């Protein structure tokens, strides 16, 4: 294939579908009880140097509990898929757990402003960066999910985003039009937070999917954290609701409020006060270190973090916010 142009950014993961096939060939397809604690899941499935991906959209249906645990266990030199990443990246940057990043959106927390901690870490020179767009990372995951080494797309062309990416430009053999070809991205390990899963890993969620369906299928190892485990019969009763089938899932972890302080659709809204607390603490290195100690390193698990931040009473209030009924009973 005639390559017209090639970005100079790194491709951190191998896009070879035959290697992915060889990996998946060995994966068990049996329905077994895959439930475990988050501590156990992170210990078992996240290895230093792995390429990590986080589901959801920064602070929306994001496995925040998993990010905390990864930091708590002091993982190092991870690669990170920085697609639509906000609070997740902020936590992982605080722990300095990654040293390579595919950057589509990071550093910022959308309308909330920029994360000083994420920014400082990226600017430190300790992190190798490759540039992409949010949709490009979504399409790269889709390529891996389809078992092909690349997919063509029509954004990124003509820009520095292309030049500092690992994409390639080539003409279409049917129309002669120039396309950006993006290489398959298959994370070593991925965490996705959902509403419900059975013990085998069949999972379903409400609200927007972001890029989680592509991500789930693209990943070599997939850990599902969920608000609640449901009986398999419940899944089997309406199998068209299953978005992630059990056989691609390696572990199921029940973590109620696992997306806090982010939003979980139809469950709880984001805790903006606590997210602001993060951004304020980030400004002073010492205060930030003490803050991290308090909310992550000194917490035995995520329940301790929830308790520290107001416990079930706070969760009840965030549920009322989610359902737009703030006014009553407060």
């Amino acid at each position, binding site marked *: 294939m005639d390559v017209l142009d090639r970005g100079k950014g790194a491709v951190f993961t191998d896009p070879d579908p035959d290697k992915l096939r060889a990996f*998946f060939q060995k994966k068990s*397809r049996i329905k077994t009880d895959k439930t475990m604690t988050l501590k156990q899941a992170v210990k078992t499935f996240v290895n230093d140097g792995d390429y990590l991906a986080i589901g959801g959209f920064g602070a929306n249906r994001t496995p925040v509990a998993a990010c905390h645990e990864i930091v708590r266990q002091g993982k190092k030199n991870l690669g990170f898929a920085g697609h639509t990443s906000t609070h997740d990246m902020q936590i992982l940057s605080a722990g300095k757990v990654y040293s390579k990043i595919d950057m589509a959106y990071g550093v910022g927390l959308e309308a909330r402003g920029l994360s000083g901690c994420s920014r400082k870490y990226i600017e430190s020179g300790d992190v190798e960066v490759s540039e992409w767009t949010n949709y490009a990372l979504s399409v790269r995951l889709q390529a891996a999910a389809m078992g092909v080494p690349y997919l063509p797309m029509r954004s990124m062309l003509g820009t520095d985003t292309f030049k500092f990416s690992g994409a390639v430009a080539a003409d279409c053999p049917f129309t002669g039009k120039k396309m950006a070809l993006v290489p398959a991205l298959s994370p070593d390990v991925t965490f996705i937070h959902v509403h419900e899963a059975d013990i085998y890993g069949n999972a379903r969620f409400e609200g927007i999917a972001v890029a989680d369906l592509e991500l789930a299928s693209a990943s070599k190892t997939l850990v599902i954290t969920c608000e609640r485990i449901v009986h398999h019969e419940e899944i089997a009763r309406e*199998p*068209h609701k299953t978005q992630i089938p059990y056989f691609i899932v390696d572990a199921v972890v029940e973590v109620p409020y696992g997306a806090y302080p982010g939003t979980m659709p139809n469950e709880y809204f984001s805790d903006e006060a606590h997210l602001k607390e993060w951004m304020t603490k980030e400004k002073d290195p010492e205060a930030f270190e003490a803050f991290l100690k308090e909310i992550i390193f000194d917490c035995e698990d995520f329940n301790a973090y929830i308790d520290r931040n107001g416990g079930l009473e706070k969760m009840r209030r965030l549920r009322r916010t989610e359902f737009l009924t703030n006014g009553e009973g407060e």
Partner: protein
Amino acid sequence: MTDYNQMEMMIVIAARELENGATVGVGTGAPCAAAMLAQKTASPDLVIMFEAGGISPELPEMPISVGDSRTFYKASQAGSMGTIMSSCARGFVDYTFLGGAQIDMYGNLNSTVIGDWESPKVRLPGSGGANDFASFCWKMMVMTPQDKRRFVEKVDFLTTPGWLEGGESRKESGLPENAGPYKIITNMAVMDFEPESKRMRVISLNPGYTFEDVQENCGFELLRLEDLPLTPAPTEEELYILRNQVDPGRVVIGR
């Protein structure tokens, strides 16, 4: 010794190939019967997938279509063709059973036309999902009657890839590595493919048949193991389950 017909024999042999915990992409008819029989005998955790989207159903009866409601009855997921085929493409599916009007010595299948494509004697359904399954699933199997008109020197149309022209040709074609035809199960024998040449090779004889019977009913020269064992006959238990639990309506085994 229990009486059984040739379809029952083929289904039983096929079922024994499906080890517990494997995944299999199946169509309707005999392959589905084999998968169901395997689940009810040695392989309760065999995972069945249908090309239209059904994943791991608890089949309450034999489906009529690979897209009917039975194919996702109490399933783990009712997905899409994309869900299934991309799972196959990623290497998640171990086995598939395919068929065709013709098969050659490399396990290539024809289900498109008899005669010339431009002006066919008989137009057949085409690939359907067969070419996809055969390209992606690790081990492709065929259940078919042993018949000179089916086992041909050259298929009229190469719909679905076997080992193509043998040797390294499949690898060079760009198809996924290390996948390909695995076993051919007929009423007379079981065949595999000789590892170097990728030519069809008889590896066991079904009760009542000789190698010469098989060769006489085959349009090309077959390889063979020197010592040909006997394919174990269906057990009473296998037949009981097949007849009473898998296909009580005799939709497949009554053919």
